[in-house]
Every structure is written in structure tokens, then in C-alpha cells.
């Protein structure tokens, strides 16, 4: 299942890199996150605040889970087009020196999961099954020379290769599953142990270099290690089971469901994070300006945000998405590949979600800046003749920063949930992409099939709940620690 590392790098070396807009934005956000982390670690005050967050076990576990999801999304955000094999003429010489690239756009994650991606079955198959979930007519040669046609669930094409052809006896099956479970768990634990050993050694070395280390968070460290070890074991089990099975089964066209949920993580993170890039500039500028300048400016800004928030959120999004969709449909010539088209649609969805959700933070910040403009230090700055823009930037913005951050983190989970609903309505992400919403949408008809196809929905459910729950828990912890308005018990 794992591909040869040398092949892996050769493919990456020869490919044409494709940078989608959302790729760039996701990596930009990651960069911003790293910069923010460095700034926090450098400032003693901020470190103390964040120590409160990461002294809570659940917050640490959630942060690790989100980080793992984010690393999948980031790996899925490096795209490339593989070179096509050069056409050979009759004479044996290559037709031209120009390299041609496949139309199909893949990501590094696709390459890592190529075993899962390419393992198509005929149609539905249950998790860990060796037979198809549907019955098919099978002709069987009877010993008396006649043939009989029976309806049977045939063996899968890709899964169950480790077993000899024909029916698999229960004992053979379960021994194989148990063996793979054990091997996977041990392998995952081993990989984790090696990495943890290196990490702890580095940590120890740093501690020795600077005995009064500022990175000493026993709770955070312990729970990071526990969570990571569990995730590694889980990943190991999945990987070793995937060698012979589809862990979450296959969908209607026979595609592995585990691959689909892993691909959906990127869509969920893009939807959860990118709209805030639109929301924040609009909401912060308008909110602060309305509160600080009051009067006519306030009236105008209040008018704008009352108008925007008067339109029911879903309907405004629907209206905007429908219009954009018609525009994209009428201009197929804008995009070279289907992936680029899907990406532009995803981006426009993010922009629309951002444009419709800035009113909340604008109203919040208007109140704050209305209050803060009366504070003594702001009055003093004004008396010294500091310009309004500078006051807002230097004296007010840093003080409302916690509110901005909390809103952003809280927004994440509601955006991820909104994506599912929008994709269900049919105005979400492009149907050629992977997303939890699309999976749920496809799955709702499957529950009325016979036998019931429950696994796509279950897989989407598990991954989505874990992601959103982690985000909610982390948001709570951040709010408790950072919000000046919440009283700490």
C-alpha cells in the first residue's frame, strides 16, 4: 500500500506544480498561524494567557486533533500534474522534447494515499467486507454438466486479495483481521515511539541548554503525547487494514470511503478558515470606525449592516451562490481543468460566506470601540494630536484582538456545519470535489436501499463530529482564557 519513497520523489520532481487559489490561502493561513505562535512564545504576557488554555486536558486533545486534520489538509493543498509518458514514434525517437502533463490534478495526499485512491470496486461494499454488497447473477457449473445461475454477492476486486478465491471461512477472515489489527497497532505505536523519542531528546537537549525553559507545560506535553499516540495507533491500524480491506467500505461507484473522508478534511478546513479572511477586514474596519467616529459614519455603517443582516443568511448565500454559479456556467473557457473550476467555486463560496457573516463582529466591535474611545489613554492620545487611524491601530485594535480571535475560532465550527447544509441544498462545493456535505447528500438515499448502506454516512458523521467537536472545545477554552468579559471561576 505504501509507495516506494524514491518513486514518490521522482514523481514530485518531474511534475508540473499547480497552485490553486485556496492552496495559497491555506498555506498563507498556516504561515500566519506559525508567526502568531512565535509571537506568543516570545511575549511573557501572552504566554501566561495561553498557558491557561493549554492547562485544560480537553483543549490540548482538541488542538492536537485539529493539528492532525490541518496537516492532512495542508498535504492535500500541494497540487501537481503528472507528466504523461512521452509518445514514441515508429522510429523509436521521442516525438518531441516537450513534456506533456496529465489533465488530472493530484495532490501530495493523493500520491500518499494512491493505494486507497485507485482501489475501485464495482459498487457498494460494507466496511471490511470481502464480498460486494449487491447480489449478482453467477453461473456455476454443476458436477452433472449443467450450469446453474445463482444470485450471489461476488468477491471484491481489490479487497480480500490476501484470501484464496472462493468463499472465505469466518475463522480465516477473523484471524487475518486480528493479525492486521495487531500489526497496525504495534506499527503505529512503534512509529510514534521513534518520533516521540526524537522529540523528547530534542526537548531535553534544549532544557539542558537553557535550564529555565519557558516551554515547560507538563499537562500540555502529557496530553499531546497521549493523543498523538492514539492517533498513530489508529492510523497504523487503518493503514494495515487498508492493505486487504476497505476500512469504511466503498460507495456507489466503488470508491473507498476512507479516502473520501480524508479528502473532505481539506474542504472542511478551507470552508472553516478562508471566509474569516474576508470577514475580518470588513468587520473590523467597519465596526471600529463606526464606534470611534460616531455620527454620520456610524449611521452609514449601521445602515449597511442592518440591511445585510436583514436578509435571512441562508437566502442571501443562496442568492449569491446562484448568481456566481450562472456566471461560472456561462464561462467554461476560464478554467483549464475541472479541479481549477471546482476550486474557484469553492473560493467564491468562501467569499460569499465571509461577506454575509461580517455583521456579527462589526456590531460587537462597534460596541467595544464606542466604549474604548472614552478611556483615558485614548483621550490622552487624542490630546497629543495622534491621528485617528493611528489611535485605532495602536490603541484600540490590540485591545479588541482577543474578541476578534474568539469570534474567528467560534465561527470555524459553524462554517463547517454550514457547508454540509449548503452542499445538501445543492449550492455548496462543486460536485466533483470531496466534502462532508456531498457525502451526506449522497448517503441519504442509501439508507433506503436493501441491504442498508450505512457506512458512508457513518464515516462522514464520525469525522465531521470529531472535527467540529474539537473546534468547539478549543473555542470554549480560548474564550474562557482570553475573553475579558467572561469571569474566570
Amino acid at each position, binding site marked *: 500500500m505504501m509507495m516506494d519513497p524514491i518513486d514518490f520523489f521522482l514523481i514530485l520532481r518531474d511534475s508540473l506544480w499547480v497552485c490553486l487559489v485556496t492552496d495559497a490561502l491555506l498555506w498563507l493561513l498556516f504561515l500566519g498561524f506559525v508567526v502568531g505562535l512565535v509571537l506568543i512564545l516570545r511575549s511573557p504576557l501572552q504566554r501566561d494567557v495561553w498557558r491557561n488554555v493549554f492547562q485544560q486536558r480537553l483543549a490540548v486533545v482538541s488542538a492536537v486533533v485539529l493539528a492532525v486534520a490541518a496537516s492532512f489538509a495542508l498535504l492535500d493543498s500541494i497540487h501537481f500534474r503528472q507528466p504523461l509518458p512521452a509518445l514514441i514514434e515508429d522510429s523509436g525517437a521521442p516525438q518531441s522534447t516537450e513534456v506533456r502533463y496529465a489533465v488530472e490534478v493530484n495532490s501530495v495526499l493523493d500520491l500518499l494515499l494512491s493505494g486507497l485512491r485507485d482501489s475501485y470496486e464495482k459498487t457498494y461494499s460494507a466496511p471490511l467486507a470481502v464480498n460486494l454488497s449487491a447480489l449478482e447473477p453467477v453461473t456455476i457449473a454443476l458436477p452433472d454438466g449443467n450450469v446453474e445461475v445463482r444470485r450471489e454477492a461476488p468477491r471484491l476486486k481489490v479487497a480480500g486479495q490476501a484470501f484464496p478465491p472462493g468463499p472465505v471461512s469466518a475463522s480465516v477472515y477473523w484471524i487475518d483481521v486480528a493479525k492486521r489489527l495487531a500489526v497496525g497497532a504495534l506499527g503505529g505505536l512503534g512509529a510514534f515511539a521513534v518520533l516521540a523519542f526524537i522529540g523528547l531528546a530534542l526537548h531535553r537537549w534544549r532544557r539542558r541548554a537553557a535550564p529555565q525553559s519557558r516551554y515547560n507545560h507538563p499537562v500540555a506535553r502529557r496530553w499531546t503525547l497521549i493523543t498523538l499516540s492514539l492517533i498513530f495507533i489508529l492510523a497504523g491500524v487503518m493503514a494495515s487494514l487498508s492493505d486487504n480491506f476497505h476500512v469504511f467500505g466503498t460507495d456507489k461507484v466503488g470508491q473507498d470511503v476512507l479516502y473520501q473522508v480524508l479528502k473532505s478534511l481539506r474542504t472542511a478546513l478551507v470552508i472553516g478558515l478562508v471566509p474569516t479572511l474576508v470577514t475580518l477586514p470588513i468587520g473590523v474596519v467597519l465596526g471600529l470606525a463606526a464606534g470611534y467616529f460616531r455620527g454620520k459614519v456610524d449611521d452609514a455603517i449601521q*445602515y*449597511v449592516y*442592518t*440591511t*445585510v*443582516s*436583514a*436578509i*435571512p443568511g*441562508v*437566502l*442571501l448565500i*443562496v*442568492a*449569491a451562490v*446562484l*448568481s*456566481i454559479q*450562472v*456566471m461560472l*456556467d*456561462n464561462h467554461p473557457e476560464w478554467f483549464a481543468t475541472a479541479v481549477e473550476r471546482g476550486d474557484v467555486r469553492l473560493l467564491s463560496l468562501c467569499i460569499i460566506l465571509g461577506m454575509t457573516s461580517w455583521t456579527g463582529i462589526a456590531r460587537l466591535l462597534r460596541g467595544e470601540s464606542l466604549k474604548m474611545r472614552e478611556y483615558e489613554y485614548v483621550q490622552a492620545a487624542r490630546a497629543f494630536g495622534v491621528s485617528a487611524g493611528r489611535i485605532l491601530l495602536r490603541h484600540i485594535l490590540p485591545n479588541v484582538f482577543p474578541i476578534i480571535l474568539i469570534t474567528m475560532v467560534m465561527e470555524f*465550527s459553524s462554517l463547517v*456545519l454550514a457547508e*454540509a*447544509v449548503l452542499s*445538501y*441544498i*445543492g*449550492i455548496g462545493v462543486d460536485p466533483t470535489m470531496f466534502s*462532508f*456535505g456531498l457525502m*451526506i447528500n449522497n*448517503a*441519504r438515499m442509501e*439508507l*433506503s436501499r436493501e441491504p442498508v448502506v450505512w457506512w458512508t*454516512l457513518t464515516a462522514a*458523521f464520525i469525522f*465531521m*463530529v470529531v472535527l*467540529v*467537536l474539537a*473546534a*468547539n*472545545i478549543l473555542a*470554549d477554552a480560548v474564550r474562557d482564557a482570553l475573553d475579558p468579559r467572561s*469571569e474566570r471561576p
Partner: protein
Amino acid sequence: MLRYLLRRLFYAVPILIGVNLITFALFFMVNSPDDMARMQLGVKRVTPEAIAQWKAARGYDKPLFINESATALQQVTDTIFFDKSMRLFAGEFGRSEDGREIGQEIRQRMGPSLAIALPTFVIGLGLTISLALMLVLFRGTWLDRTGVVLCVGLMSISSLFFIIGGQFVFARVLKLVPISGYESNPWTAWHFLVLPVAVSIVAGIGGSTRWYRTIFLEEIGRDYVRTARAKGLSDARVLFGHVLRNGLIPILTGVVVVIPSLFLGSLLVESFFGIPGLGSYTIDAIAAQDFAVVRAMVFLGSVLYLVGLILTDLSYTWVDPRIRLK
């Protein structure tokens, strides 16, 4: 009071015009009527005549804002903007793509929407407030902690899962209620309504319970609560007589504003359970890319929201005698 009401109604007019400008820009300026015609008629092999005919039939062949070929007031009134957007103020919603009167449809579909939304709202509100009060009564104990964890858990589950799961378990496996459908008489249609109402309540219970709990906890730290306790009132009396009544003020802000919008129904629940309400009407319109219907629903939604805002202000004077509207 009356003057206040009139002023608020007067303020609502520019906001509604703004709403119309936004929807107008989305529907007619991002895509020209020609684009819409091409999409409705199918992109391939559309003759210019067919487009012109399609536009003329729907009145989309006029200029957007100013008609220079007309005279006097007609310059403004004989345009798409006036025809399609300003007419909405008079309650003239026009016709949908399939030629039906939108206003008529809205009147018909309001009932089924309300049949779902009203019980959901009333029972849900009562239930969440009671649950929140219970958590506050047992604050600091394991019951409170489990309750909060449960709330966060429920909040993290997409409402789609509740709907699909509820439908699967109660309608398909246990066969307690029909999977979907509706009867025009709401009194006999209750067995169609039980599941959608229950599912909507469960889907919304986590977020609101947690929110109300925070509000009540904030109230419980105030001085009047200490006074009430000091004079020997029981915990329950303090909670129901004082904390609940004071906590209602912030709760009203979020609750009253949605009451008028109950007419609009719920997009998801109605379409899953086959309720012929306004929510499923909107979904169908979206699927058919019927812009006239979506435009009408946007306008209706905004009007109902603004009514909700005014009602919120009025409700304050009712629960909080300190507030006087001028």
C-alpha cells in the same frame, strides 16, 4: 408609543430598499438577463429570438434603472428595477418560472410551515429554558458538567444527521410514524408532524440550552440574588421568581426577533419530510434556479426580520418596566 412605532416603520423603508438593491445587483447585474435566459433555455443552440422572447415574456427586456425612451415618471417606473423590486413593497411578487402566482403560493404554504415551526418554537423554548434552569440549579455538580458536555456534543452534530438519523430510526426501522408527507388539515396531520418537530427541537437544543445557562449564571451572581437568599427565600423561589424573570430580558433579544420568521419555515426539515411549506418551496426554487421565487423569499424574509426587530423593542417594555420607548 405609537409615534415610536411609526418612526420605526419609517426607518424600515430605506433598509428594505437597500435589501432590494442588494438582491437586484445579485440577480440582474452579476448576470445579465441574457445569461439567465440562456441558462433557463439550456446553453446549447439558443437563438437570439428565443432569448428575446423569453425576456419579453417576463418583462426582463426593459432597461435596468433608467428608461431613456420613456417620458417623465415612466423613465423610472418602466424599468426592471421598479418592475421587479419596488413592486414587492405592494405585495406583488410576480410569477414564478412555471407561471404560477408567487403571492398565492406563499399564502397557501404559510400554514404547513407554521404547523412545523410554531410547535418547534414553543416546545423548544420551554424545554431549553427548563433544561438551562435545571443545569443552573445543579451548578457545579456532575449533572451540570455532563449537561454542558452533552450540549457541546449536540452542537457539534450537523442537523442533517439528526434529520436523516431520526427519519431512519423512527420512520423506517421502528415504523412509528410515516417517513414523509402532509395532510392539509393540521389537526389530523399530527402524525406527520411529530417527527419533524421532535427532530428540529433536538437539533437546536444544545446551543440554546448552553446559551441560556450562561445568561442565568450571569444573573445568579448579581446582588439582588444575594439579597433574596439573605431574606430566606428557597433556592427554587430565587430561581423561578427572580433569576428566570431577569434572565428573560437578554433571552428575548434572541427569541422575539425570530417569531415573525417562523412563517418562512425550515429549509431542511420541510424538504426532508415532504412538508409543502415555504421552506421546501424555497428549496425547490433553488433547485430549479427560479430567481423570481428566491427574490420574493429574500424580500419576505427581510420584512419579517424587521418586524421581529420592532417586536423585540416592544417586548422589552413588557418585561422590563424601566424601559420606555419614545
